[in-house]
């Protein structure tokens, strides 16, 4: 081959081809800070554009198959179901303008608002019927949410004992949707704000076939924003939906999301005004804690110790109480973790769940599991006497992540210092293994985590009934089971809330069944000009509907 020809044509051609295959985004994005001078018509107001970040790409935009917070975040902002989570984390009517209940609260009739899909089709009751049945038919990862909502036949369909068409949902006409429940359910409205309950345009979904929701143009919006571009592994763009029924409330014109996987890079991009909000890891906190945009935000996930209630020593309530009270949680969150986490002295975390009267759950129940080292020692000696031992060696099953290893070592030091004769062996395994060991109940102590399924304290409480797949420690108290059963169908919301408070007391005050450690938190750098970025405890993390740049 003529080498000159290769040099002159082949190499440049190859280089061009390679560049073409690179999929550059060339967004030329400017953060709200960078666009100071771009105010509309020079009236001094700032351009309503923000750039946010996520740690990875959207796994799927198909609401019936979505299974993580990143997808839920986008879906929540571009779509709308019957209800929506508002600024104070309560739910309010959204896609439905009216919700009628039968006297027994079994049959629910929704009257839909006039809404349009982004392709111009109207949103109809059939769209809801189609998507809910689709969730069941395709065994979507969150199909059990329809079971939790108590929709008729959902459980049977999930267990393959009935056909998806038998689901208790029916479009009476284009504007009227009828949903039938198995029993009255006080959680029903709360759950309806979850992405799994979003409508889908049947014609569009079927037309797209296996291409549905794979690209921005294969997705329809009916919410506050439209999904206008999506570059895989790089980011996506939401733009204000002018056709949205409540478009007047929406201030932001455009929200870009960048995929930033490395937190240090994220902080560097924040400093160079390429992005307006990034999450920090605890190693970066010291470096940025004096920055104007530094914030600690509470999250809704909890970290706690499971006791194996089959273990002879740990079956003793005084031993469990001693372990619970011997740990200094302030030291753990403020000195060891430093990532925005806060001490937790109950099963339900603080700041997200208020009673119908508006008081926080934690404020009402107080620090249930808080004790002093002296009280811990007292319980310890009593417990040891009861089980007829003078020392105790147990192991702890934990994930081998940096966070959990730090926590494990801290627990070891605390417990061995404060409880004479106590020895803790650390057994760090991969996360999936930790879960398997827990499900098989083959541990003494297990360092566990829990994230809520829906925005209600119940999601932290009903897991402890006998036979629940999340119990995983053979804990059983008939009193707790009974209270949970009551609360599940109690539609007197104030009375129900009393019951929830009572359940936590049974679990922790009477039984010391688990040892809550801390409520997760996150540290962020957020451009101070961004106002009203609403953070939710469950499902989607954020709502941009009420956000603005000032």
């Amino acid at each position, binding site marked *: 081959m003529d080498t000159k020809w290769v040099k002159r044509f082949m190499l440049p051609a190859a280089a061009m081809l*390679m*560049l073409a*295959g*690179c*999929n*550059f*985004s*060339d*967004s*030329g994005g400017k953060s709200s800070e960078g666009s100071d001078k771009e105010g509309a018509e020079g009236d001094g107001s700032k351009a309503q554009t923000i750039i946010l970040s996520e740690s*990875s*790409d959207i*796994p*799927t935009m*198909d609401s019936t*198959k979505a*299974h*993580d917070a990143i997808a839920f975040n986008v879906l929540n902002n571009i779509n709308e179901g019957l209800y929506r989570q508002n600024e104070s984390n309560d739910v309010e009517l959204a896609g439905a303008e009216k919700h009628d209940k039968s006297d027994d609260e079994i049959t629910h009739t929704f009257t839909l608002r006039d809404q349009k899909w982004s392709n111009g089709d109207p949103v109809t009751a059939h769209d809801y019927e189609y998507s809910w049945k689709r969730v069941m038919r395709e*065994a979507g*990862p*969150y199909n*059990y949410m329809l079971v939790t909502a108590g929709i008729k036949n959902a459980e049977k369909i*999930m*267990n*393959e004992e009935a056909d998806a068409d038998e689901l208790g949902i029916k479009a009476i006409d284009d504007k009227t949707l009828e949903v039938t429940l198995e029993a009255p359910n006080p959680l029903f409205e709360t759950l309806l704000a979850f992405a799994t309950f979003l409508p889908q345009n049947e014609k569009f979904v079927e037309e797209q076939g*296996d291409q*549905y*929701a*794979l690209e921005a143009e294969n997705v329809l919006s009916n919410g506050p924003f439209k999904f206008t571009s999506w*570059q*895989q*592994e*790089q980011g996506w763009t939401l733009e204000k939906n002018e056709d949205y029924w409540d478009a007047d409330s929406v201030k932001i014109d455009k929200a870009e999301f*960048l*995929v*930033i*996987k*490395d937190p*240090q*890079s994220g902080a*560097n*991009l924040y*400093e*160079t005004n*390429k992005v307006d909000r990034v999450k920090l890891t605890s190693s970066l906190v010291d470096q940025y804690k004096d920055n104007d945009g530094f914030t600690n935000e509470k999250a809704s996930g909890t970290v706690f110790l499971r006791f194996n209630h089959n273990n002879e020593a740990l079956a003793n309530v005084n031993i469990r109480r001693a372990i619970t009270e011997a740990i200094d949680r302030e030291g753990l969150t403020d000195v060891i973790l430093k990532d925005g986490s806060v001490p937790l002295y109950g099963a339900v975390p603080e700041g997200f769940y208020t009673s119908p009267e508006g008081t926080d759950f934690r404020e009402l129940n107080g620090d249930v599991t808080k004790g002093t080292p002296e009280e811990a020692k007292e319980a310890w000696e009593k417990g040891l006497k009861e089980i007829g031992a003078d020392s105790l060696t147990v192991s702890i099953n934990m994930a081998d992540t940096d966070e959990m290893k730090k926590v494990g070592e801290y627990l070891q030091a605390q417990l061995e210092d404060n409880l004479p004769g106590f020895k803790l062996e650390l057994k760090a*395994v*991969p*996360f*999936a*293994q930790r*879960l*398997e060991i827990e499900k098989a109940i083959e541990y003494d102590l297990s360092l566990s985590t829990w994230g809520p*399924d829906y925005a209600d304290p119940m999601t932290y409480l009903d897991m402890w009934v006998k036979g629940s*797949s*999340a119990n995983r420690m053979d804990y059983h108290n008939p009193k707790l089971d009974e209270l949970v059963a009551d609360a599940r169908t109690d539609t007197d919301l104030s009375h129900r809330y009393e019951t929830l408070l009572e359940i936590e007391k049974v679990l922790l005050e009477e039984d010391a069944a688990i040892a809550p450690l801390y409520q997760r938190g996150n540290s962020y750098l957020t451009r101070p000009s961004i106002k009203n970025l609403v953070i939710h405890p469950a499902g989607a993390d954020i709502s941009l509907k009420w956000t603005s740049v000032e």
Partner: protein
Amino acid sequence: MKSYLLKRFLYSVITLFIIVSATFLLMQLLPGTPYSNAEKLTESQRAILDAKYGLDKPVAVQYITYIGNLLQGDLGYSFQYQGRTVMSMIGDRVGPSAFIGLQGLVFGTIIGLILGIVSALRHNTWLDYTSVTLAVLGMSIPSFVFAALMQYYIGVKLGWLPVALWENYWSTIMPSLALSVTVTATVARFIRSEMLEVLGQDYVTTARAKGLNESGVIWKHVIRNALIPVVTMLGPLAVSIMTGTLVIEKIFGVPGLGEQFTLSILVLDYSVIMGITLFYSALFIAVVFIVDVLYGFLDPRIDLKGGSQA
């Protein structure tokens, strides 16, 4: 020549098959499930999902099904990225990885050659010592440290190049430079010792004795001969770059394959792990194959016919 190539090709296919089989079996030993909400699933739900994806079948049956599909060019669907085929995921992500990788190889080779040649020609001078020191640093400091340093000083402090993200050609330079560090160091060290060796050879003395001018001697006799072994280095270096991309892509936000690979292992996305392993192995085997063949062309002492003429 032909039979040699055929034989090497057959070996490659067998190697690939062994890698696929081993990965498939090793993957079965990983704990957990590919379902992202495993923590919330009941036993019966999990059984239903396992049946849906064929994970309830014995490993042998799953293996045969997989190999069967593979032979038809079907790598399956991702669990994590619902609805996406593994093939399309690799296709979408390979471009950026390949670009920064190859560019890194080019950068590294050029800088390495210059450093190596200069230090050989100025043997035992300060130039030599500096470049040797640089080479040692390049070998011993991991590329992600350079990446972080460059990102901070060149990106944040000086603002010469984009800090991260994948916006235009300028975004590719820092990732490529970070990847090229090991290549630069290896090539520099190698070419230096090769040059020194060749410079002492009889034919160089002969060339000089014939009255060839010094630059002619260096270009025609020394560098050309010293380059041969460098070609063999490029194979393993290309591979080290491939593995290097795992971290570098994450730091610079490159939408590439490496980051996808780590993620798929963490979330047990079986079909993606298999697909990417297969892809990387095939690439590795291909690189080794090409280098072997190239070597035969460059060095007449190597006989591709397998020594039948000896």
